[in-house]
Every structure is written in structure tokens, then in C-alpha cells.
């Protein structure tokens, strides 16, 4: 690859995706018949100081392919991306998004707004999902420094971007996680409350959805728990997450697996 110079009318500007397309860095997709389930659960919950994300770690094909996959990644300091769908496409999507945000920042000497990042991803998702059965359905969550709030954006299969004011879930475990979230969500959740609710919703999804990995006490692998607030992206330690899931597990064990009519 030589020095990528463009004449003014052909210049792709600060968009790395447009540059990659113009220079053939990302290849055209060919269609074939595989469809892949969104074997995942990732949850995002807004709370008063930002957003909490909880995601399972299991990669499932016809059998369990991996137990320690990371489905939530920081896209930059203040945003996180979570993926469901085809792992290969999802990983590439995350790479493209991470690089795009940084590329824009370097090209223009200013960061994209959170809404700008959310809208930027729409055509990339559309392009992927409408030209290949290897679907990717991501979730973008982050701290919006200009509005001083945490925000969540979810996408549909055609790339439509929707902001959620409460919580969002992606993946096959969504119905189960969503039920728990609907009962437990309050607008005045604090950080602890959001972590608690998110962990519980993921526990439910792991309990009911065969493609969602719950806490794995044998291998000491636990769902990822992340918070994004005014100081940026932070991931909880394994010990911290382990203690939270052990607590839920002990409560459930004491009642023989029955939640007991309350969120516990």
C-alpha cells in the first residue's frame, strides 16, 4: 500500500470505513446459506451515573466452541460495544468501530459525539446484514460527555439505530433477561443497584437459554461486568464478579431454585 492521497472530490474525509471501502481494505462479501443464531446475552442498564453492561462469555455453534469469549469491548474511553451474532463478523465490526473512532479523532483533532458514533455504525451494520446471512447485532453504550449522561443505542437487522432510555438486551437470551429487567428497572438505580439487576438478568438468561453461558464456578469463568461513567470504561475484576454471582447462586440454592416471587 502506497501513500493514500486523494484529490479533494474523492477524499473520504475522517471516516475510516469510507477510506477502507475506497482502498479495498475490507473485502466484498459473498452470500451463502448458513444462518447463525445470536447465541449470546448482553445486557445494558442505565443508572443515574452512567451505564452498566453485563455479558456472557460463551461462544456456541453446534456445540460450545469457547467459554471465555469477550463480547463487550471498549470502543474508546467513553464507549463500549457489545456484539451478538456471528463471531467473525462481530470481531471485525468491533475492530472497525474502534479504529474508526480513533481515526476520526486523529484526522479532525476532536472526538465524535456519542450520537455521531451511534449513527456512524448504522450503514456498516446495514451493509453487513443485508449482504450476508452472517448477521451481527451490536449494542453501543457509553457516557455522553456533552450531556453528562449514560446512553444506550441498539440496532435492528437492517441497521436502524434506536436509543433506549432504560435498558437493552441483545442475543438469544434476551427474552429471559428482558423479563427480569422489566420487573427490576427503576429510573433512580444507583451503580450497585444496576450491577445487581444486570447480574440477576444475566443469571436468568444463563439459566433458561442453552446458548448463554451463566457463571462457571468450576472453571472460574464469569460473565463480564462493565461500567462506563464520567471517568470512562472500567471492567470489574473476576473476584468482584465471582462474589456477585456466588451470592445469587446461594440465594437460589437456599430456595431450591425458586426466585420466590421477588427479584432475588
Amino acid at each position: 500500500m502506497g501513500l493514500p492521497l486523494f484529490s479533494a472530490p474523492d477524499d473520504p474525509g475522517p471516516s475510516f470505513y469510507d477510506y477502507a471501502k475506497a482502498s479495498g481494505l475490507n473485502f466484498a462479501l459473498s452470500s451463502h446459506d448458513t444462518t447463525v443464531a445470536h447465541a449470546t446475552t448482553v445486557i445494558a442498564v442505565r443508572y443515574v451515573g452512567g451505564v452498566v453492561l453485563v455479558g456472557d462469555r460463551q461462544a456456541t455453534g453446534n456445540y460450545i466452541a469457547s467459554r471465555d469469549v469477550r463480547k463487550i469491548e471498549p470502543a474508546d474511553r467513553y464507549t463500549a460495544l457489545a456484539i451478538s451474532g456471528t463471531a467473525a463478523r462481530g470481531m471485525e465490526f468491533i475492530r472497525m468501530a474502534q479504529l474508526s473512532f480513533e481515526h476520526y479523532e486523529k484526522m479532525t483533532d476532536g472526538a465524535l459525539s456519542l450520537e455521531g458514533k451511534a449513527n456512524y455504525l448504522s450503514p456498516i451494520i446495514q451493509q453487513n446484514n443485508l449482504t450476508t446471512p452472517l448477521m451481527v447485532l451490536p449494542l453501543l453504550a457509553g457516557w455522553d460527555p456533552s450531556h453528562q449522561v449514560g446512553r444506550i443505542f441498539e440496532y435492528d437487522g437492517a441497521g436502524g439505530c434506536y436509543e433506549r432510555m432504560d435498558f437493552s438486551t441483545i442475543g438469544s437470551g434476551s427474552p429471559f433477561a428482558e423479563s427480569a429487567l422489566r420487573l427490576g428497572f427503576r429510573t433512580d438505580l444507583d451503580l450497585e443497584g444496576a450491577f445487581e439487576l444486570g447480574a440477576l438478568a444475566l443469571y436468568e438468561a444463563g439459566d433458561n437459554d442453552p446458548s448463554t453461558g451463566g457463571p462457571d464456578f468450576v472453571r472460574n469463568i464469569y460473565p463480564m461486568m462493565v461500567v462506563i461513567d464520567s471517568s470512562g470504561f472500567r471492567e470489574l475484576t473476576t473476584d468482584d464478579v465471582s462474589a456477585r454471582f456466588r451470592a445469587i447462586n446461594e440465594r437460589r440454592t437456599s430456595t431450591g431454585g425458586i426466585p420466590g416471587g421477588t427479584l432475588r
Partner: protein
Amino acid sequence: MTNYFYVAPEQLIKDRATFAQKGIARGRSILASTYDLGVVMVAENPSASLNKISEIYDRIAFAGVGKYNEFDRLREAGIRWADGTGFTYSRDDVAARSLANYYAQHMGDMFSEGPKPLEVEILVAQLGNRFRETKLYRIAYEGTISDEEHFAVLGGDAESVKARFATTYVENMDLSTTLKNATAALAGPERTIPVGDLEVGILEDRGVRRTFLRLPDSEVSGLLAG
């Protein structure tokens, strides 16, 4: 049949060189120097938004003097090249030497074959790590690339700035001293440059992947006072 006036190639090159030098000489100089923890780049630039010093990649920075639109296009191409290379291969595979060579080729081509030579002089700085050295590559308007040791100066007044800075330079000085010496060298004996007219960028390991940092005025004044 059209008759062309014959111009000797020596004369053509000389004219083109004079043209480019004049364009470059109109701007203020930029000084880049290594210090104990990294590389600092100092430019005299009254504009706070039209930058002369920029981030290219995790450990690579760019500085340009001369015509803003010309070196800014080179800067953009450099970011695209670096991000594209890192995307295709790995972040570790993005090296300043390759980029400096591409710049040199392009500037050389523009000098000899373009409608007019580029009226710019640029610097590609790389902060070293376990497997790469700290490097300062200066690329002149006609594509000459030079691997400068310890410090480099770009711009019309480069020789005298370089001579002044050379008298004060010692290896492994701290950032504050280096910045003070650089500012004094850029200003010369007869004047001082106000902090608001200084543009300062550093490449330094701070425990994060991206080592480039643009220093705000407050920090620059602190370092100059310290």
C-alpha cells in the same frame, strides 16, 4: 509544430528548488528533540486550531512547515496509511521508516514531475520501544530524507535555530529543560515567544497505548517556569 524554449535541467531543478525554499522560508520553524522520557516537538504557531504537530499513530507523530494545505494533506495520508496498515497487519507493524519513505517518494515525485514542488518540509517522529528505536526523520521538499540524531529543525530559519539549540543540547535532559532550550532557540536572542503562540506535542510512554499528547498552554507555561 510548436517550438519549446529550451531550459537546461540544471536550471529547471534550481528554479523549482528556489520556488519551494521561498514558500517554506515564509513560515516559522519547528524544533523536535528527544528528552529523557520521549520526544518533544515545539512549533511557533499563533493559531490554536490549525495544527502543525499531530498524532499519526500509537508511537508516531507528524510535524510540518510551509503551506498548510499541502502538509495537512500529507498528515491525513499518513494517518490513513498508518491506520490501514495496522488494520491489515498488526499495530506493531506500523513503522515510521516505511511512512517516511512513502512521504519522501511522493515529495520527490512532486518535485521532479508535479505541476509544482510541494512547499513543505515535514518530520516523522517515532518513540522507541523494545523492538524499535526512537527516530526523527526529516523529509525536505525535494524528497531528501534524513535520519536526524537527537534533534531536528524544520523551516526557513532551520540552520540558525539548529545551531542555537545545539549549544544547549545534552542527552537525556528532562522535558522542562528541553522545552525551555527549544523555545529559546526558536525565538533567537532578540525576542521571546508568548506561551499562547507555542504549539507543543510530545510522544511519551504514560502507560497507555497512544503516546502522543498535545500539551495545553497551562502545562507549557508550567514547564517553562519549572
